[in-house]
């Protein structure tokens, strides 16, 4: 474990969090800290879930330009929103809170379980799963386009608003459910960090070292799915942020050890998201969704990694 990297990542997160909590604050500190604290927790939980799930997914697939979002989670989430609006009409605005969170999380986990279960039953080809996930995403987007044709234009705005990750409308009760789930799953993955190191070596070396690669890979897709599903149900779809964090942490940490990569990724991801939100809200005085910008940067990083790999 690289203690220097972890300390630097922790310092980065703490400075970002302190700025977020205090910058431009006027009035009752009790209210400000409670209000901003809740939002800080939402940002942190989502960033940790996305960063950790991306790093683990990349280890399992032995591919540093993949994110779990590529498996079609975002498309499924948006389809659920469209179907909700199509079914409930204007009443969809009231469809939120714990029931919506539980349904969305269950559907996403169920869809991933079905996908992985069917594909991995007779095959150990992870690339096939990833490709199927991409195709599934395209199918879900097409279905979504069909459903939105049936939605009244005035109600379509609801779907559009839900299509982007948002932190301003996270219900506190959901946060208190999502936080322990993300914390427990992350802790579990951290405990198995050395096993992740072995899996990162690839199928044959892992088998030689006594790790059943196929079973371990399937086992790891469960927590990855859970993290992505919880994060998406909490704030909405996030596609490229994980890729951005993973690229940064691999560059900064200079190690392959997951005992360093996972906590450093979680802290750097959370610090980055909180810092960007602080800049947007407090310095630039913009109310735009910060993730739109971060996702764009993440998309550019994705292209950069793609071109670099093509040149190599």
């Amino acid at each position, binding site marked *: 474990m690289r203690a220097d990297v972890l300390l630097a990542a922790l310092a980065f997160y703490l400075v970002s969090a302190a700025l977020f909590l205090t910058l431009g604050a006027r009035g009752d500190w009790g209210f400000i800290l409670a209000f901003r604290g809740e939002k800080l927790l939402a940002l942190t939980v989502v960033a940790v879930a996305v960063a950790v799930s991306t790093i683990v997914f990349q280890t399992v697939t032995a591919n540093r330009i993949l994110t779990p979002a590529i498996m079609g989670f975002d498309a499924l989430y948006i389809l659920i929103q469209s179907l909700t609006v199509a079914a409930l009409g204007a009443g969809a605005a009231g469809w939120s809170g714990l029931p919506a969170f539980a349904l969305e999380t269950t559907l996403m986990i169920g869809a991933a379980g079905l996908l992985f279960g069917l594909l991995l039953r007779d095959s150990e080809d992870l690339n096939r799963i990833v490709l199927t996930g991409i195709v599934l995403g395209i199918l879900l987007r097409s279905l979504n386009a069909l459903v939105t044709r049936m939605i009244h234009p005035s109600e379509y705005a609801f779907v559009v608003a839900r299509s982007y990750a948002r932190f301003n409308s996270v219900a506190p009760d959901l946060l208190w459910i999502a936080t322990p789930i993300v914390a427990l799953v992350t802790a579990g993955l951290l405990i198995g960090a*050395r*096993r992740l*190191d*072995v899996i*990162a*070596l*690839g199928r*044959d*070396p892992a*088998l*030689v*070292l*006594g*790790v*059943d690669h196929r079973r371990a890979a399937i086992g790891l897709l469960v927590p990855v799915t859970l993290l992505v599903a919880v994060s998406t149900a909490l704030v909405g779809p996030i596609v490229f942020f994980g890729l951005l964090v993973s690229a940064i942490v*691999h560059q900064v940490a*200079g*190690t*392959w*050890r997951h005992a360093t990569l996972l906590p450093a990724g979680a802290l750097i991801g959370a610090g980055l998201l909180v810092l960007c939100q602080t800049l947007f809200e407090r310095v630039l005085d913009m109310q735009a969704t910060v993730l739109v910008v971060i996702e764009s940067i993440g998309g550019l990083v994705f292209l950069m990694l793609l071109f670099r790999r093509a040149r190599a």
Partner: protein
Amino acid sequence: MIRCHDLTVSAGGVRILEGVSAHAPAGAITALVGPNGAGKSTLLSVMGRLLTPDRGQVTLDGADIATLPRRDLARRLTTLRQSTRIVPRLTVRDLAGFGRYPHNPGAPTAEDRRIVEACLADMALTDLADRHLDTLSGGQQQRALIAMALAQDTPALLLDEPLNNLDLTHARRVMTLLATRARAGRAVVVVLHDLTIAARFADHVVALKDGRVRAEGAAAEVLTGPILGDLYDAEVEVHEIGGLPVILPI
């Protein structure tokens, strides 16, 4: 002792191994020899349970390896394949340290560190121990991979062309080390293309061609002109220089 019974392996409709039965005794180096495409690497992969045969069985000291839990097998047998992917941001010491994982999946103990350092020294890698693998030459990477296999400290070692990319000195070092391990009672199986090296270091030889065993026995019995001529479809002469065998194609 590793024993293969009637192994058959196919891939893409092509038979790669056909009813292969052979054994690798403990306390000896067994060389797998034969022309390209003979099935040597496939046989080694099946022996190491990296590949499941269509038919047949491999036993290790009488136990069917297919029924052994993975971790138990990893404590008893290690395999070094010909083309092992290198993780770039890994140091030589880190890679060798992985060899201890089957014995201790937790934090490395003092004993683990001692074994890893000894294996690094055996492979003349102590000075390179903190270097990342992507900064090393092919031969140095190969030695690091061998160090990992040695650190696993198993009674059976399977190595597919371990002398790839190695210079004369390091090739001799590796074979001498394997011979020492074999004399200590381990079963060492090595895929070799250099027949002179095989003649000098192997105790037991399995000669394969077209997925079948053409000859098996003591090195002096198998590594002969007629058998090698049939194996490689070429004229081969076996000479002796300074009391050591030298095998040359004509």
